[in-house]
């Protein structure tokens, strides 16, 4: 069915189609309309789920952690400071291997307060053990949510589906709503191996000692290091599963094909722009204009940020003359996180491209096509290393 709706409603519709059993909801701009839509789905009987209007994001993730531990398909959504308020819970969910799915409508972090879009919130959670998917448009939001449940439950790792606040969360775009029966056929039931059960009592997330220790049968049980090692190994292997899920999704729904990175006019390009989220689609206009000028440039959007798809990125970027990484996030005192990751991935290559790092759009600062056009045009004409200090675009009234 064709719909014209907001990105938040696309996300909510994906959650309904995936038949989440427990939803924890706490309002925060710009995610709030997603939460409101889910409450409407549940109250009107369009969706059978336990809707818990919690008193904080910390509790939202607590509800998801507990519900998932007890064997229910759990969902929540948040933005910005809400995501940061969950911080310890995010690490907890990953360490407990709980396949929670959460939407993050990306927003800048205070102080100072901003309700507008950048990606500092989810980028700053990249080390917590969550899989991070980024959607570039409304179709990708709804599709990613459905795929996220599949992926999370297959690999027992929580998944964040991130999309730009306002730019995607509040804008209206046409998209295809997948058919419920097809989704039911696509997405397997959630059957966790670890679930709280009075018939089979055990204690979850028990305190661990630094070393391994025998269990009640005298067998040595793995310890904290082993549990965390498995998480890392499985996170890496999850990329193969995402690829398979994406193929299956394509067979069922006719969409997909770029689970890791989404290149646009990159094959013959000398220069490649890399960015995350809606900005990568914004750049397509810029690329089209530059192509008309004869500049051989393409753009690549990052669809999966954790686990980091280093192989796909290296395959796409090695041998290029230059790579320009545009980011709406920064590791303060260093570089953009994506820039640092791509640079590290390219380190072993012989034919490394020159790289530039641009920081832009923080706190919703407007990004204009003309500005991007001028920046990329100039960059392509001087494709040399500029050093690792990021270049800030769009600064005004500079001290």
């Amino acid at each position: 069915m064709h719909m014209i709706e907001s990105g938040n409603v696309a996300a909510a519709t994906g959650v309904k189609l995936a038949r989440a059993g427990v939803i924890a909801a706490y309002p925060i701009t710009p995610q709030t309309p997603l939460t409101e839509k889910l409450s409407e789905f549940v109250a009107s009987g369009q969706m059978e789920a336990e809707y818990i209007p919690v008193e904080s994001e910390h509790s939202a993730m607590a509800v998801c952690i507990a519900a998932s531990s007890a064997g229910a398909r759990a969902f929540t959504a948040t933005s910005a400071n809400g995501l940061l308020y969950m911080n310890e819970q995010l690490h907890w969910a990953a360490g407990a291997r709980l396949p929670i799915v959460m939407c993050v409508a990306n927003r800048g972090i205070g102080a100072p307060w901003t309700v507008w879009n950048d990606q500092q919130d989810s980028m700053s959670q990249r080390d917590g053990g969550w899989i991070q998917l980024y959607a570039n448009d409304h179709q990708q939001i709804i599709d990613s949510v459905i795929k996220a449940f599949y992926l999370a439950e297959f690999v027992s790792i929580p998944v964040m589906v991130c999309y730009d606040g306002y730019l995607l969360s509040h804008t209206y775009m046409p998209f295809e709503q997948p058919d419920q029966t097809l989704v039911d056929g696509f997405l397997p039931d959630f059957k966790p191996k670890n679930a709280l059960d009075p018939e089979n009592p055990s204690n979850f997330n028990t305190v661990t000692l630094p070393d391994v220790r025998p269990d009640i049968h005298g067998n040595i049980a793995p310890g904290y290091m082993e549990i965390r090692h498995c998480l890392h190994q499985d996170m890496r292997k999850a990329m193969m599963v995402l690829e398979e899920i994406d193929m299956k999704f394509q067979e069922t729904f006719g969409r997909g094909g770029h689970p890791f990175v989404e290149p646009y006019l990159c094959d013959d390009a000398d220069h490649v722009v890399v960015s995350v989220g809606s900005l990568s689609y914004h750049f397509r206009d810029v690329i089209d204009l530059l192509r008309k000028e004869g500049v051989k440039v393409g753009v690549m959007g990052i669809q999966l940020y954790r686990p980091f798809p280093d192989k796909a990125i290296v395959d796409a970027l090695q041998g290029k003359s230059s790579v320009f990484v545009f980011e709406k996030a920064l590791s303060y005192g260093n570089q953009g996180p994506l820039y640092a990751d791509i640079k590290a991935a390219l380190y072993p290559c012989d034919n490394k491209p020159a790289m530039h790092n641009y920081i832009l759009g923080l706190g919703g600062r407007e990004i204009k096509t003309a500005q991007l056009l001028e920046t990329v045009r100039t960059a392509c004409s001087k494709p040399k290393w500029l050093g690792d200090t990021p270049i800030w675009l769009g600064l005004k009234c500079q001290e």
Partner: protein
Amino acid sequence: MKQDDFSTLISRSDPGPGDGGRTGSWRVLRPVIDLGACIPSKTNKRACFNCWFYCPDGVVSKTIPPVIDYEYCKGCGICAEECPAGAISMIEEAHFMEEKNDECI
């Protein structure tokens, strides 16, 4: 890939005794029941059982006579304190070690 290729290893613990080891070794004083004074033992009736009831570790049996599991009894002395007949004495473990040593000789 198969789902079984993925670990579900978490800190999941199965119930069992002695997580803290043989906690009887914590004991400095050992509760010893004088069966001549102990109410259920003396009367051969199911009665009292305060020692079973108040024990924080559940190491006293609700039987005639009550039996203390010295492997796990931490020697807190609550049973002795709460015994209405004053039938439980707290005796220094050293005393029993001497006994054992004597046996060895």
